[in-house]
């Protein structure tokens, strides 16, 4: 079933597939074992090389695929085999998985390199240079897990990667586990990490249930076997496919931060910026999109489920975009933007536009990574400026500086501390502009092509979703414009922004590569040429899927471009001419009133979950533990009722003079009962030897008498 196909012609590097996982594992092992003696540069190089090699492998695999359109499966080892359950460690190489591999390997490597520079400073700001190595170990672990996720040949191996990246996410969000985002001693980051893992687990629960239904329906969880039998099952019991796809959607919602499980992603920004870029924007969170795209043969069978997925995606896209408008933290804005963009992708793959969804996944990986990393560069710049300012400040003694108080809790990520930074950080500024334009979907940046493809497909497939997405696109352009004005234009609102310094090349060079990709990424799938479409269809052909081919729709393109430009214009009207500071409310608040308060407070979703799920659970758990289990079951039932009953019984049954001290357990009761009995019996035990002898004598006489009488 799973044997790799015999290769007949052409260069063939398929056997390299397992190295996608082995390289990063080797890298992290080297860093764990020898890292203690390495300098930061060596550690970073080892990790980056390991990651870079996976990209090389991915490219080689892509080249090999030209001769084997339908893809191959490389069997590594048998994993679990019980009766009908046959699971293997097997790697699936086809155009879909290779696309993901290249994104993970490529963007991953760039972020590794960037992180060498970023973490060098970050660990120093936070006074723990020893943690540099740990970061790269985790990062390599993430690459390994992500590669397992995208290259698995069955749902369970995919699940291994799925939870593996969740673990890495947990570890990296909680990287600075002893502080909050402002480096104050706190459990905030740790709580954010835990929140991410547990929310993901809720999604994984759905995945697990889907897997179990699938196994008992198909007697397999291997992709090809399942997809081939799906038609048959769908005719007999369509309910099963619907159940599988909807439970899977729960998993998607967890991992790709969709409604209702998106709440963890904004908090995940507690991780260092490269983590936000790599895991929480470019790769891991897109795993859900990949899962739906991978399961296309299942989803295509059940339009009802498809509709639900598309609506969830569209709603998330709009909902998160509105929240992004009300945020002040530079990374939080990007986080909600990511949720929103993931909504675009999920909506796309949900309604059956798998190519469009995957295309947006790729371009989004480029420009969102670029944005996050640039934001990181901005934060570092402000941070440098802040330190600089502090030194100046110390020279002047304790002057009556206007925000001496605030400098205690200075937040380098808050946009209200920035302003006018296009002058102090020009390179970063231009990079940021490129990323923003790509995200906003302005011609000819990558985002324009991919987003428009989704919107064009939506007009044909699901108009409700189109409306949702179009509004979301408007908000996207608006909040990006707002961010640009607040960060880079106007006057510096804090001396830190004034003194901000540009980042070194190790940080900016990877950004430039990403910027180039963000500009040119659209070329992957230009209308009419459709390279990417053909590429992905190689995988889908196999299952005879009749995918909808969206044509380039000029009306849609013009509409969205106009909307985007309009949004940027409005944002200039509101934010471009006047700085927003801590002292005054956001100008939009005056316009929108309570609606803006909702956006600012994330529509109180977190509070809602606390009130509806978490607090009740904690209360129930505490009640069960303290009252039911301990006071009722342990203390009352066992120690009082059972022991008490026994005690009473032994008292009346044995004798009235049994004292009743300290009998507080069934066990103790029985013990005490035994003791009482023993004390009574010990009356016989006089201690006089002659007495004992007498009892022996009695025995002799009685037995002898018995023998006589017998």
């Amino acid at each position, binding site marked *: 079933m799973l044997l790799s196909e015999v290769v007949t012609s052409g260069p063939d590097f398929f056997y390299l597939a397992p190295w996608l996982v082995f390289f990063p594992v080797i890298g992290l092992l080297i860093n764990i074992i020898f890292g203690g003696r390495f300098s930061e540069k060596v550690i970073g190089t080892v990790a980056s090389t390991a990651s870079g090699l996976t990209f090389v492998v991915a490219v080689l695999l892509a080249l090999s695929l030209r001769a084997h359109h339908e893809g191959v499966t490389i069997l590594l080892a048998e994993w679990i085999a019980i009766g009908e359950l046959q699971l293997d460690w097997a790697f699936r190489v086809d155009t879909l998985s290779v696309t993901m591999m290249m994104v993970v390997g490529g963007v991953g490597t760039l972020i590794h390199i960037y992180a060498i520079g970023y973490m060098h400073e970050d660990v120093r700001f936070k006074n723990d240079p020893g943690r540099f190595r740990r970061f790269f170990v985790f990062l390599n672990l993430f690459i390994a897990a992500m590669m397992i996720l995208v290259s698995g040949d069955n749902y369970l191996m995919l699940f291994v990667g799925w939870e593996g990246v969740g673990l890495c996410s947990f570890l990296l969000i909680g990287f600075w586990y002893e502080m909050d985002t402002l480096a104050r001693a706190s459990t905030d980051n740790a709580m954010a990490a835990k929140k991410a893992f547990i929310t993901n687990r809720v999604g994984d629960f759905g995945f697990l249930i889907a897997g179990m239904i699938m196994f008992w329906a198909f007697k397999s969880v291997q992709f090809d076997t399942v997809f081939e039998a799906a038609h048959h099952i769908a005719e007999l019991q369509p309910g099963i496919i619907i159940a599988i796809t909807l439970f899977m959607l729960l998993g998607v919602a967890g991992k790709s931060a969709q409604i209702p499980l998106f709440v963890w992603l904004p908090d995940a920004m507690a991780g260092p910026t490269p983590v936000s870029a790599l895991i929480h924007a470019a790769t891991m969170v897109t795993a859900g999109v990949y899962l739906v795209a991978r399961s296309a043969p299942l989803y295509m069978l059940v339009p009802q489920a498809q509709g639900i997925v598309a609506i969830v995606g569209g709603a998330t896209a709009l909902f998160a975009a509105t929240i992004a408008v009300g945020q002040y933290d530079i990374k939080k804005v990007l986080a909600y933007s990511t949720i929103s963009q993931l909504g675009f992708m999920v909506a796309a793959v949900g309604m059956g536009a798998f190519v469009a969804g995957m295309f947006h996944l790729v371009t989004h990986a480029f420009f969102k990574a670029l944005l996050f990393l640039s934001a990181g560069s901005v934060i570092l710049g402000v941070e440098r400026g802040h330190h600089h300012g502090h030194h100046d400040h110390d020279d002047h003694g304790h002057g009556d500086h206007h925000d001496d108080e605030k400098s205690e809790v200075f937040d380098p990520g808050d946009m209200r501390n920035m302003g006018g930074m296009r002058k102090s950080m020009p390179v970063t500024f231009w990079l940021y502009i490129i990323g923003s334009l790509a995200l906003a979907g302005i011609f000819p940046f990558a985002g324009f092509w991919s987003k428009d493809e989704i919107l064009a497909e939506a007009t044909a497939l699901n108009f409700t979703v189109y409306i949702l997405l179009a509004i979301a696109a408007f908000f996207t352009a608006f909040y990006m414009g707002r961010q640009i004005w607040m960060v880079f234009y106007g006057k510096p609102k804090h001396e830190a922004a004034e003194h901000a310094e540009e980042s070194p090349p190790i940080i900016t060079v990877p950004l430039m590569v990403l910027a180039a990709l963000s500009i040119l990424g659209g070329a992957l799938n230009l209308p009419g040429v459709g390279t990417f479409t053909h590429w992905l269809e190689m995988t889908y052909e196999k299952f005879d899927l009749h995918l909808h081919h969206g044509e380039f729709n000029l009306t849609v393109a013009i509409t969205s471009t106009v909307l985007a430009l309009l949004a940027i214009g409005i944002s200039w009207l509101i934010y471009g001419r006047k700085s927003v500071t801590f002292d005054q409310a956001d100008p939009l608040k005056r316009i929108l009133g309570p609606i803006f308060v909702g956006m600012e407070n994330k529509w109180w979703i977190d509070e809602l979950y606390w009130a509806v799920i978490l607090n009740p659970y904690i209360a129930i758990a505490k009640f069960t533990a303290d009252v039911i289990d301990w006071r009722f079951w342990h203390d009352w039932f066992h120690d009082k009722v059972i022991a008490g009953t026994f005690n009473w019984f032994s008292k009346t049954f044995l004798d009235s003079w049994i004292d009743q001290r300290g009998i507080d357990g069934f066990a103790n009761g029985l013990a005490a009962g035994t003791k009482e009995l023993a004390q009574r019996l010990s009356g016989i035990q006089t201690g006089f030897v002659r007495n004992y002898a007498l009892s022996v004598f009695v025995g*002799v006489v009685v037995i002898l008498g018995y023998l006589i009488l017998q």
Partner: protein
Amino acid sequence: MTPELITFIFLALISVASALGMLFSRNAVYSAVYLIINFITVAVFYLMLGGAFIAVSQVAVYAGAIMVLFLFVIMLLGAEKLGNNETLGWQRPLAIILGLGLIVEILYILFFQANEIIAVKDLPEGFGSPASIGTTLFQEYLLPFEVTSILLLVAMVGAIILTRQEKKNV
């Protein structure tokens, strides 16, 4: 009434009387002397039953050595007499009743239930003589005999260790 029966009854009365004397005399020294008498009568019974060597051993070891040891210890400790206040009130009557019961039971078995064992035949020449005992002992019972020597050795060591004066400062 054969002479043998008369001898037996006579000796049996002495034997039981001396045993009772040992049992009831207040003074431990008297008890010891009564016991010696008892042992000697028993030795005579052995003779009557054809155990010449055993009879002599009985007199020499029991009546002689062992009882001397008893007397020696009694004198050493100076504990001939004890008060007669019985601590366990019902022990004595119960013991006597049970004792009588036991005797009745055994005699009942012997004379009413079991067949009377009568050894009518004359004994072969030399039965129970030192020579025949020695032959049996060193042929059939050689190993137990040798083990007995170890037993005696252990008893000796044990007696010495038990009576050793322990150092007070331990």
